[in-house]
């Protein structure tokens, strides 16, 4: 199957898995925004998620894991190949279209991976010190756990930094998805790029709002 071996095929796999993660990130934000309805909101939402049948929960988790693994595997593979595509650099660098985001996809991706691991250790497995008190019950008082965590400056800082990284990854990633899938042309491309950036911006603002409002004391436990 050319999908797993060829240049374009592997890009398509990255694009599909990337889009899958974008979908997740959108749904995750919609769910998380229930925190602004107070303890009842987020805790009810968490309760609802945990009460879903096990096959659905397990299936979803396995699917996400497969998506991430495929995305990372081909991301690293293609990046290594591409670094060899021009073995000797120009003495004068004069890129006209490439952006900071497009040139650093592998690094913003790597930071996102670190963040995902940290995020899961903290709020899913609850093994980091500040959430030790919430480890017993699943899901338990999710609202309390989140509010306790984001009172800490460093945790808020890490989350804000991770969301800047996500923003950068997606400003290039979303329009890249459409180009890679062949769903683009000269008429729609500028619109796709603007919309992609807008979606990335909305996701960024939506996500940082949670730690920042808690840290600033606007959203209280």
């Amino acid at each position, binding site marked *: 199957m050319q999908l797993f071996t*060829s240049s374009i095929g592997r890009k398509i796999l990255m694009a599909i898995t990337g889009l899958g993660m974008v979908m997740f990130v959108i749904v995750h934000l919609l769910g998380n925004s229930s925190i602004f309805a107070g303890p009842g909101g987020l805790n009810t939402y968490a309760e609802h998620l945990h009460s879903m049948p096990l096959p659905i929960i397990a299936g979803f988790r396995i699917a996400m894991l497969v998506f991430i693994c495929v995305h990372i595997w081909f991301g690293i593979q293609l990046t290594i*190949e*591409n670094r060899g*595509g021009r073995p000797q650099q120009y003495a004068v660098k*004069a890129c006209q279209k490439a952006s900071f985001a497009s040139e650093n996809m592998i690094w913003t991706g790597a930071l996102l991976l670190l963040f995902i691991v940290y995020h899961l250790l903290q709020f899913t497995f609850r093994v980091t010190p500040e959430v030790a008190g919430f480890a017993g019950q699943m899901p338990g008082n999710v609202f309390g756990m989140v509010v306790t965590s984001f009172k800490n400056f460093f945790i808020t800082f890490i989350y804000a930094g991770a969301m800047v990284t996500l923003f950068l990854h997606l400003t290039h990633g979303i329009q890249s998805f459409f180009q890679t899938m062949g769903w683009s042309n000269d008429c729609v491309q500028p619109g796709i790029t603007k919309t992609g950036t807008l979606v990335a911006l909305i996701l960024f603002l939506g996500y940082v709002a949670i730690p920042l409002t808690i840290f600033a004391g606007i959203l209280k436990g």
Partner: protein
Amino acid sequence: MSDHKTMTLTLIVWRQKNANDPGKFETYTAKGITEHHSFLEMLDCVNEDLIHSGKDPIVFDHDCREGICGMCSQVINGAPHGGQDRTTVCQLHMRKFKDGDTIYIEPWRARAFPIIKDLIVDRSALDKIVQAGGYTSCHTGGVADGNAILIPKPVADEAMDAAECVGCGACVAGCPNGAAMLFTGAKVSQLALLPQGRAEAAARVKNMSNAMTECGFGNCTNHYECQAACPKGINVKFIARMNREFIKAQF
């Protein structure tokens, strides 16, 4: 008269004896250059001086010198073909430069384009991609009637836009990954758009994209540097079209 005003420029040029030589930059002075000189004519002047003083002239590719053959290939101050919109090196004129400027001149740099000498690189990898599928198979014989196959004007125009590619390789030179997606996308699209090319479209896109990888070109990461480098204004929409053709070809 402006004709009498001349410029003196400092050129920093990549010199390399052959593919195995590590190569290095050499500095030259271009004297007596007018705004009417083309970039290649400016190099001709420098080469005459070099020959008169018993030195090896700077070797560079060129042929038509009118912007249609795609032979000229130099990266000037970091930009393939010098960075002027839709302009090949041979059509770049010295009025774009000022007296006293320093100009870096480098060859196309990509794994798939080994350097032959100085500014000349071996671009036969592009020919290999074309050999892999950049043709249509048809019976020879009497000339077909011009109106036998009707093609809507917008489709014919789109195919012609893709067919403007002269195969210079600037897209590869401009791409940080040394990918040949714009070139291949243009060739795939030009044929896939027309009824004569449809018959072999699926095999073509598979074979041509495989040839791309076999020749050592990198993969596309949608930086779109290729479009900025292309002297013929080939649009990255043709890369999207190739990706579309590739997906269709899988089923």
